[in-house]
């Protein structure tokens, strides 16, 4: 019974995935291209960066980079917290 339910769920999910892949625009033709063109044309005079990728990462999409830095901070905090707690528990027992 569980296997049948799992198989049905898997088939439904697979159908959704295939449906999504079939709806993608053809390769090499991104449908909304006006944002790319705007950034490529105006990034150098607006942000002064010669590297347009850096201007996108740190200026146009800076909020995304802030989230990335937060993820790194959380990961470091978690690793230090877990390792320290385990060490202390070993000492205590």
């Amino acid at each position, binding site marked *: 019974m569980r296997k049948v339910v799992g198989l049905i769920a898997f088939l439904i999910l697979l159908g959704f995935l295939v449906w999504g892949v079939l709806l993608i625009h053809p390769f090499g033709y991104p449908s909304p291209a006006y944002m790319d063109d705007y950034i490529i044309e105006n990034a150098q*005079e607006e942000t*002064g960066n*010669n*590297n347009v990728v850096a201007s996108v990462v*740190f*200026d146009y999409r800076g909020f995304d980079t802030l989230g990335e*830095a937060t993820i790194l901070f959380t990961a470091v905090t978690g*690793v230090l917290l877990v390792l320290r707690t385990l*060490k202390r528990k070993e000492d205590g027992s």
Partner: protein
Amino acid sequence: MLSKMVRTVANQLIVFIVIFGLYVIAHGQVTPGGGFQGGAVIVSGVVMLLVAFNSKELKKSLRERTLSIMESTGALIFAALAFAGIGTAFFYNLLVGTPIFGHVPPTGANPGDIWTGGVVPLMNLAVGIKVVAGLSAVVLAMALFSSGEEVEE
């Protein structure tokens, strides 16, 4: 601790690795790369030292507390630079046109024009400090834990 040959080569090589990492961080607004990538390069050098020497030896020079302070400082500088342009918008590049990193290049390729970018070079530096300290702390803590040493607070 590995053999003397490995330790000597690692001692010589760490200088070049750190210099290359600093180059990638400092030229983030000109060439491909930036804070995250250059920081990862420097941390790979730290991992090399960790393999060549053992973690107990490396703990003497890289203190966990210093690394934590460095990481928090980098994060605070990054957030402060983001909030500095809050008068116009969050993450507004307010240094473009000013004497500090403010030279606006003409459209097209400008090799060697590094005095550009507004707040982007400073953000690269802050993120670089943060990545170096954070990943070094993670690697060092894992090595100390697996070798049974006490993690210093």
